[in-house]
């Protein structure tokens, strides 16, 4: 299908999320939409998929102007969306998920599962998306779940597939596999709209690149364009792609983890005997694709998850199976993976959030009664020092942008006396400016002698920040390398290859 977006504009109050955006996708073309977080990509896709209606502009499919009112209609027109956060029901089977909404039926409104599974097997073979139709989604690894998403779109006879940040949860090898699938789909005549903020992927797969920034189209580019040029188109200025670090001068050991075993919510082993050491003045980056136990590992470190066996020691103090209160009071700083769920209380003020984990400590409270003057003074100081953009310290945190919310958390942690910092996916969902800021903070503190563990699934971030890089795979540390290691070898380890086989 040929899809044309002409002058799409969408406003939310005074904010213009999409500003006269025009894009054309040809049949059989892999068209990449490149933009950083907050550039307006999601809004544009919601408009295309009928979840939002544009204030101006029109959608043109195969030459015909077609206003789209709801998702059902979008699907019927041949648009297929593969969402970033999968739209799959975890407790259903693959078959149930694929046919949802378009179920083949027998008498009495019964679902004809035999026809459904036949159709799935047929599609699987045609597009090389092998998956077991009877499997239950929540038991499948993420890469396979994504295949089901794609199958779902294909089963609705999609002619144009929209892939929204599909590689966030994939290993480098799975990413390669996905690119193969994309190429074969394009060869079969399907159009692909590939949305991402990752420069390397865009250069590897796209036929055409459209760059958007702050709601409008900056320009189109060829995949041969250099990375730095693409980056500055994305951000609008010269972007520093690496962080300045002073010489690596590690001190004594601060954090010691030995043979840690931790279970996940379903009772299965998530952390399978992990041992780590981190020294003062060192950043240990924990790399790995999401879902290999990093989340449970961090939760165990900060006291939010039970440790089955093994030990955690901080400066000689035992921190195994302590309460979060104890961990925080022992000098552990925590920047959580899900900042809105675990890091902030959005309905409370910026000032309250800035003392969220130390509200009772002097001078913020005395004998059970809070000292608002001290809290406010602290808040003013931090807002100034960390350049937090907010209308007032009493404004609710929900009024802050994602980047500023993260700054609140970073400010809170770094402004108290820390022995060690644990930060999990610290720059997820942030714009480039905020990413730079957070990286700078981490490195500055590292230069000043703070030891930290940064967990990230972004290979670039891991390589930029880590003095040493530990790779986690299926609950174990596959290997620990230093900053001389190559992207390829780390990528291989993230997929499970041992250090020797990866050539390290």
């Amino acid at each position, binding site marked *: 299908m040929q899809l044309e977006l002409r002058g799409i504009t969408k406003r939310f109050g005074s904010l213009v999320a999409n500003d006269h955006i025009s894009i054309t996708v040809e049949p059989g073309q892999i068209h990449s939409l490149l933009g950083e977080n907050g550039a307006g990509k999601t809004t544009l896709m919601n408009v295309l998929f009928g979840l939002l209606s544009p204030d101006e502009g029109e959608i043109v499919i195969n030459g015909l102007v077609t206003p789209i009112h709801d998702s059902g209609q979008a699907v019927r027109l041949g648009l297929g969306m593969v969402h970033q956060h999968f739209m799959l029901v975890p407790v259903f089977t693959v078959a*149930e*998920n694929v046919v949802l909404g378009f179920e083949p039926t027998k008498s009495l409104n019964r*679902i004809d599962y035999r026809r459904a599974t036949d159709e799935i097997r047929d599609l699987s073979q045609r597009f090389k998306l092998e998956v077991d139709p009877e499997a239950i989604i929540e038991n499948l690894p993420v890469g396979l779940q994504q295949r089901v998403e794609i199958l779902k779109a294909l089963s609705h006879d999609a002619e144009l597939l929209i892939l929204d940040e599909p590689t966030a949860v994939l290993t480098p090898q799975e990413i390669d596999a996905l690119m193969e699938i994309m190429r074969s789909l394009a060869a079969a005549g399907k159009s692909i709209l590939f949305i991402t903020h990752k420069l390397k992927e865009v250069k590897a797969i796209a036929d055409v690149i459209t760059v958007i920034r702050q709601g409008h189209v900056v320009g189109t580019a060829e995949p041969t364009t250099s990375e730095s040029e693409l980056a500055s188109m994305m951000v609008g200025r010269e972007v520093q792609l690496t962080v300045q670090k002073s010489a690596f001068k590690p001190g004594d050991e601060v954090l010691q983890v030995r043979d840690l075993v931790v279970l996940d919510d379903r009772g299965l*082993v998530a952390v399978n005997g992990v041992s780590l050491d981190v020294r003062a003045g060192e950043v240990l980056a924990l790399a790995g694709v999401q879902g290999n136990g990093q989340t449970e590992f961090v939760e165990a470190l900060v006291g939010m998850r039970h440790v089955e066996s093994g030990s955690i020691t901080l400066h000689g103090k035992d921190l195994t199976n302590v309460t979060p209160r104890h961990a925080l009071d022992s000098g552990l700083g925590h920047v959580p993976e899900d900042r809105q769920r675990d890091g902030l209380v959005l309905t409370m003020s910026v000032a309250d959030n800035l003392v969220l984990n130390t509200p009772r400590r002097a001078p913020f409270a005395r004998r059970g009664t809070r000292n608002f003057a001290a809290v406010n003074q602290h808040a003013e100081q931090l807002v100034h020092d960390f350049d937090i953009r907010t209308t007032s310290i009493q404004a609710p945190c929900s009024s802050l942008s994602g980047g500023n919310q993260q700054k609140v958390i970073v400010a809170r942690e770094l402004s108290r006396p820390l022995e060690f910092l644990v930060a999990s996916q610290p720059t997820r969902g942030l714009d480039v400016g905020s990413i730079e800021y957070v990286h700078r903070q981490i490195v500055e503190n590292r230069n000043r002698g703070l030891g930290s563990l940064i967990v990230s699934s972004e290979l670039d971030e891991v390589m930029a920040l880590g003095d040493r890089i530990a790779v986690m795979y299926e609950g174990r540390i596959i290997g620990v390398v230093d900053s001389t290691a190559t992207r390829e070898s780390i990528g291989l380890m993230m997929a499970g290859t041992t250090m020797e086989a990866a050539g390290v």
Partner: protein
Amino acid sequence: MSLVATQSAQNVATLVRNRRTRVIAVLMAIVALFTIFALGSTCRSSAHSVLTFTPINLVNAPWHLGSLTVLTRWTVIVLGLIELALAVEVWVREPRRAVMARFGIVAILFLLAVLFWAARSPGPSPIDFVNLTSILVGASATTMVLVYGSLSGVMCERSGVVNIAIEGQFIAGAFLGSIIASTTDNFYYAAIAGAVIGGVIGLLLAFFSLRYRSDQIIVGIVLVTALSSLSSYLNLQVFTPFPNFNTGNLAPNLPIPLLYKIPVLGPVFFNQSGFFYVMMILVGVVSFALFKTRYGLHVRAVGEHPRAAATVGIDVIRVRYINVVLGGAIAGLGGVAFMATQGQFQVGYTSGYGYIALAALIFGRWRPSGAVVASIIFGLSVYLSYNLVTYNVPISIYFLEMFPYLITIAVVAGLIGRVRPPAADGRPYERD
């Protein structure tokens, strides 16, 4: 590649140490020891109890089955030992599933033991027999109402809406049903009226929860309070001056030819009011609809992951409206059924059964079949708490009255955390 890796991850020996399973095992053991020592030893070794099977009401009686006389002490001790065996099994094996099912079995065995013990002769009881059929028939009335209530819960919660207002729908159904049944003498009309009023209340609940996204639990509680007060108000305004609106006629039993003659099972399953048969049919219909049909898949998708459902074009709000109204209608029908088997409407006579039905829903893991099993257990415990008084047991009648509610608390406390409600249950759906 990764598919194989996941399989092996699941086969890894899991280090599950579940403290709560052990607590349940300890509770079961306490019950078992109580059975053996407190009950077993207080009977004289010569005491015997009689188990009879012919119902008291000889109209449409089944074939006669002789009675069974047992030595009380040994019977009670044997029952206690079985309970103890189950307790030990739970402690040692720590099964991940069906722990509460074992707890339920222990509860039933315990009730049986208590019955035998209470009816022993020589002993303080004026009656020396336990009429199994009467007990099951008596409990079936309560069980029927609980099934209606938990079916209503299944319909609503599977689509993602918590219906605390079941108690209110019972009250409304019983009230309106009484008026219709008393004036027209026709229980079909009463049933329809009850279903309609239940549906209307469901509509109110849906309206406030879905359109205005108020907290469903709060709306439910406010509705029940309002309906309860309204029923008290109307009782004084309508029933007191016009008692002919509240005659308390009971629905007649409709025996199924031949089947009703089967001993024990006959009177329980095949000689009941129409409401009972409708209940059984509804269980089948709801099960079929939820798990085999297109409609059911949509409902369950909406209850688990409404956004996913929306992206394939399912109207989440519409599905929820339909289900909550249907669920309400079922609960309203349950209220009429209650009135049809209990008699004259009295303020408060539904006694919290609507809430017990919710516990049965949870116990039954949001499946109609499970809800039926749970309702049977709760129904028996409610019935026995009244029935035991006739045996002159040395427990104050007031503590016996507390029994079903305490059982409900124990079940709910033991279950939460090991059962998964529909993932979107109770959460308002936000459109973009």
